[in-house]
């Protein structure tokens, strides 16, 4: 069971995310959108969307940090005061994201206009996100100092996945709450290419460097010349 949940399923999830995600981006680019609903409802969105997005992005960044730079994190946590500060920050951000998520879910379920643009997949995504947030916040409260023990348990486990030599037994002794949290991450990864979550990879960082104006030619200027987006201003 552990073998399937934490050694086989992760590869299925990643494969789906990459393969289906690429196919969708190439074959059906029209379907890729953040599907904003601000036009239809903006007051709840103001409170929900910002806290959810910023909260979850920072928490995700923290997880990524523990995965990529475990040594740095352990060094930081060497002092109990610093470790406590990090723990409280993490928990706070988690709660921040959770409150935002609850506002957004409530909005989606109760606002008539938003219900019109809600698909079953949206609800499934929210369910998975709520499982992640609730189990994450509970873990931070019940099984404290995750910022330290993550580097001892999950960092080597994730690297074992990356090396294609999975060691799921590393998660054997963990409490069910933590295991659910970890497994749910792969569930989200599997849902990613089939849902609106795809907008995650469309964050327009190119905007930081692209020219302000875009001009595109519809005709070939001369024989052999390729159509190109050229810059002006």
């Amino acid at each position: 069971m552990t073998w399937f949940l934490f050694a086989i399923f992760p590869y299925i999830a990643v494969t789906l995310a990459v393969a289906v995600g690429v196919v969708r981006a190439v074959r059906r680019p029209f379907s890729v959108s953040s599907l904003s609903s601000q036009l239809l409802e903006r007051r709840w969105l103001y409170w929900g969307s910002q806290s959810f997005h910023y909260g979850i992005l920072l928490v995700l960044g923290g997880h990524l940090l523990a995965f990529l730079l475990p040594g740095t994190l352990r060094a930081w946590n060497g002092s109990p005061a610093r470790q406590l500060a990090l723990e409280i920050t993490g928990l706070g951000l988690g709660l921040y994201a959770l409150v935002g998520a609850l506002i957004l879910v409530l909005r989606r379920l109760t606002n008539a206009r938003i219900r019109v643009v809600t698909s079953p997949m949206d609800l499934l995504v929210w369910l998975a996100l709520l499982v992640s947030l609730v189990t994450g916040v509970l873990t931070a409260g019940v099984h404290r100092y995750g910022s330290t023990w993550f580097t001892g348990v999950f960092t080597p486990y994730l690297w074992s996945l990356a090396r294609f030599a999975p060691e799921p037994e590393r998660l054997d002794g963990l409490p069910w709450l933590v295991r659910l949290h970890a497994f749910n991450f792969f569930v989200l990864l599997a849902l990613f290419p089939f849902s609106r979550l795809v907008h995650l990879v469309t964050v327009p960082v190119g905007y930081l460097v692209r020219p302000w104006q875009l001009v595109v030619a519809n005709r070939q200027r001369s024989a052999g010349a390729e159509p190109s987006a050229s810059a002006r201003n």
Partner: protein
Amino acid sequence: MNVKAQVSMLFHLDKCIGCHTCSVACKNLWTDRKGAEYMWWNNVETRPGTGYPTRWEDQERLRGGWEPKDGSLRLKLHGRLGALLKLFYNPALPDIKDYYEPFTFRYSDLFDAPAADDQPTAIPVSAITGEPIDIESGPAWDDDFSGSGIYARNDPSLAGVPEETRRQLEELERIVFNYLPRICNHCLNPACVAACPSGAIYKREEDGVVLVNENRCRAWRMCVAACPYKKVYYNWNTGKSEKCILCFPRLETGQAPACAHSCVGRIRYMGVLLYDADRIPEAAAVPDADLVGHHREVILDPFDPAVIAEARASGIDEDWIRAAQRSPVYRFVKEWGLALPLHPEYRTMAMMYYIPPLSPVMSVVDADLFRLDLADGEGAFELFDRLDASRLPIRYLANLFSAGEEGPIRAILRKMLAVRLYRRARTVEGEAPADLERLLESVGLDAESAEAIYRLSTLPTLEERFVLPPYHREVAIESLADPLSHKGLTGLGFVEPPARGE
């Protein structure tokens, strides 16, 4: 010099009767779809009024257009990093209430109602939720509703009009309004293009049409906020932005856009303008007072041999240069200086032009009688010399068309009045007296140009109003790449049905 061509439209507001035929033609052709019900790519507003979406000119709230800073321009909406920080919530966006909640009527009730003593009625239902709603506003909700303390009084373009005049505009005998049809301005310096984080919006090189590539649009909606004319709309159903496409499929087949073609008052003209793309950054960044002049300078003379040579060098073919030479838009805008862009102070270099409307002389109450504000014995030159007595305040027109500068508006109104006086004399007396010739000279016209203005304003044929260049679709990339790749696809080349993403 970097010569480019722009297909441009001109609105002769003196002829607009506010019938909304343009809006309906556009609606039927393009936005009669789920998620697009509230969009009016072409709308007609009663001005003074708040317009659609309501108070769209209030850029302190909606943050549209560019603002000059240290000699260059920056988007009023955001900087590059600021754009990324506002992805999750954008306060500058209009709400659906600022447009209106789209509605339809449950017509089936008329047929399905059981027999009863009363007539059945079709109740209004929201086009979004399908639930019954109370209609609170709609497209052109303040149609013909000038003088109102809610709509007319809150027109942002009345700023700077003296309080005394504003109060007069609400008096019954002095109420005045004109119609303002609006489509996307297909700007030379489009703020929507610059604001799009995904780079989905672009200006087409051949004809300057600004288009949204919906395959690249990711619904960040910065374009909606950045367009100062609020002419990019967000489709809440597909999750993509949409805008006026200047009916490019019609243009490419030699037809005028649906709004222009259907115009009952024949107020719309279409033609090619040649412009110098190199001059855009400088012309868009000058102080407000110089905007109109610099805007005109960017448009080039299609008869100038140097311009023609540069146009050829940048790949504009002969047919387009010839079309530019016959362009009615060029004649009105540049040759006669009669037309202005809407709100040049937004600095997007709008490419749709307006001939401002003439208005009647102000009325006065004299011994309980209403009469025109003309002294006894004053002749036909009266309004010409006293433009301030016209009912539409000059300052108001200046706020709309010349960044608050009254000079260009006065010059145009004088020209139009001079042509009118001249032609009236020709028609009534058979010949214009010499003082009218001098009057024409004083506004920079002569008998020949006055006749030409008169003919193009009042008696143009379809071919004279719409001088459309041949698009040469046979050399377009799509047709060269693989003609069969479009076989069996929907309409405009969607490779997938435009359905909401999952």
